[in-house]
């Protein structure tokens, strides 16, 4: 609360030449205050829907219900092992050749066909989905989008926003802007490393080979880092070799004595034959 007032006052002080209507100022101030308190479950869903809509405005859904349902079954089984099994988890394949995966608050998870087609087995798919699920569990995007929205709303308070009375459209606009920025710029690197560790544990809890994510990262590492389909992933994530090194150090010991994990290679190939043929 104190921060919101400071930001608002600071912003206003930079814009002393503007004339403010006190009632309008109160409206924006209320919007700012709402942006600073922890998000409720329904607000998280609203922010997630907005962020998911931005992603789906940039890349279409793969028009293949069987593959979509398969990815949903794998993803939900992993999410059921998490601290938030009851949120409405939704998984989708984006029909895009880029190699990437995304999460949005409230349980929206996406993987591109470019990445899906490079995977070798279900454990690798689980590793990717578990990393994204971990972002949702740890509220990485939720916190980052709300932070950007706060800054945007503070900026609006100094200018055009005050000419409109409705606070929800401005808040939605600010959230959409925050989502665009976070997906194009990426999260904090520490968030990615944390999602790697949390995701590995989730995949292992679900019975998948916990090294599925490391295998995916090694496949990315061996690609030309200048490859066009890696562009956004490389811009928004730490280098694959750095992620592999940190995961290897963290996983050594706790997971070495465990066995009985599954790769799910045959089922993965059978399901993906929907895309590539038998």
């Amino acid at each position, binding site marked *: 609360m104190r921060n919101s007032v400071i930001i608002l006052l600071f912003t206003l002080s930079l814009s002393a030449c503007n004339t403010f209507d006190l009632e309008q100022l109160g409206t924006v101030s209320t919007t700012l205050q709402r942006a600073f308190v922890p998000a409720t479950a329904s607000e998280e869903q609203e922010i997630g829907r907005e962020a998911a809509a931005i992603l789906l405005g940039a890349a279409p859904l793969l*028009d293949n219900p069987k593959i979509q*349902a398969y990815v949903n079954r794998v993803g939900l089984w992993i999410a059921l092992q998490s601290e938030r099994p009851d949120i409405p988890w939704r998984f989708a394949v984006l029909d*895009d050749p880029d190699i990437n995966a995304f999460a949005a608050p409230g349980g929206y998870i996406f993987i591109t066909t470019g990445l899906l087609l490079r995977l070798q087995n279900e454990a690798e798919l689980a590793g990717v989905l578990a990393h994204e699920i971990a972002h949702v569990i740890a509220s990485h995007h939720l916190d980052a989008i709300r932070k950007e929205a706060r800054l945007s709303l503070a900026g609006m308070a100094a200018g055009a926003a005050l000419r409109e009375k409705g606070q929800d459209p401005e808040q939605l606009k600010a959230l959409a802007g925050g989502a665009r920025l976070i997906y194009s710029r990426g999260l904090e690197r520490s968030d990615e490393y944390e999602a790697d560790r949390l995701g590995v544990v989730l995949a292992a809890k679900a019975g998948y080979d916990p090294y599925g994510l490391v295998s995916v990262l*090694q496949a990315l590492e061996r690609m030309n880092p200048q490859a066009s389909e890696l562009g956004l992933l490389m811009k928004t994530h730490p280098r694959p070799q750095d992620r592999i090194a940190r995961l290897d150090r963290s996983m*050594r010991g706790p997971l*070495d004595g465990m066995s009985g994990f599954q790769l799910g290679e045959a089922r993965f190939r059978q399901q993906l034959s929907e895309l590539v043929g038998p």
Partner: protein
Amino acid sequence: MRTLLLALGLCFMATIVAASEGGTLIANTPLYDRPNGEVKGSLLANTLVEVGERQGGWYAVSASGGRQGWVRIGSVRLAGEAESESMLSGFLSWLNQPRSSATGNSTTAGIRGLDAGDINAAAANYDAVERMERWRVTPAAARRHAEMLPLRERSVPPLADRK
């Protein structure tokens, strides 16, 4: 159709890569007699190795002079796709045609795929968000899916951050 062509190109490339599996050690590395076993020697950084089977976090490797054993997965950098990359580039440039999505929601130019510009320019597509709901599955369906493999729920400790 585009997805099928892309898949065929990737399969073609995977075949090339699989035929020349190799790797390089990224640091001086202990060589073990088996996963989690005893150290039986060491290999220097930048040693070229033939990479074989993976067991958990371990790769079986062999180096020149008959040196064979197991190393940690993070010790090895697998050989790159440089050779096949140029072939893939040719394949991708052939595919590099403006396209319309199968679902008709958005158009993305070329094979380059999703980038920051696309996201910054994207208009929110709420219809597609609603379509995602159709593919949601129930927890019971997810459990049946797990039982069929079978996947067994495990107790796994959290991992410490080791920078």
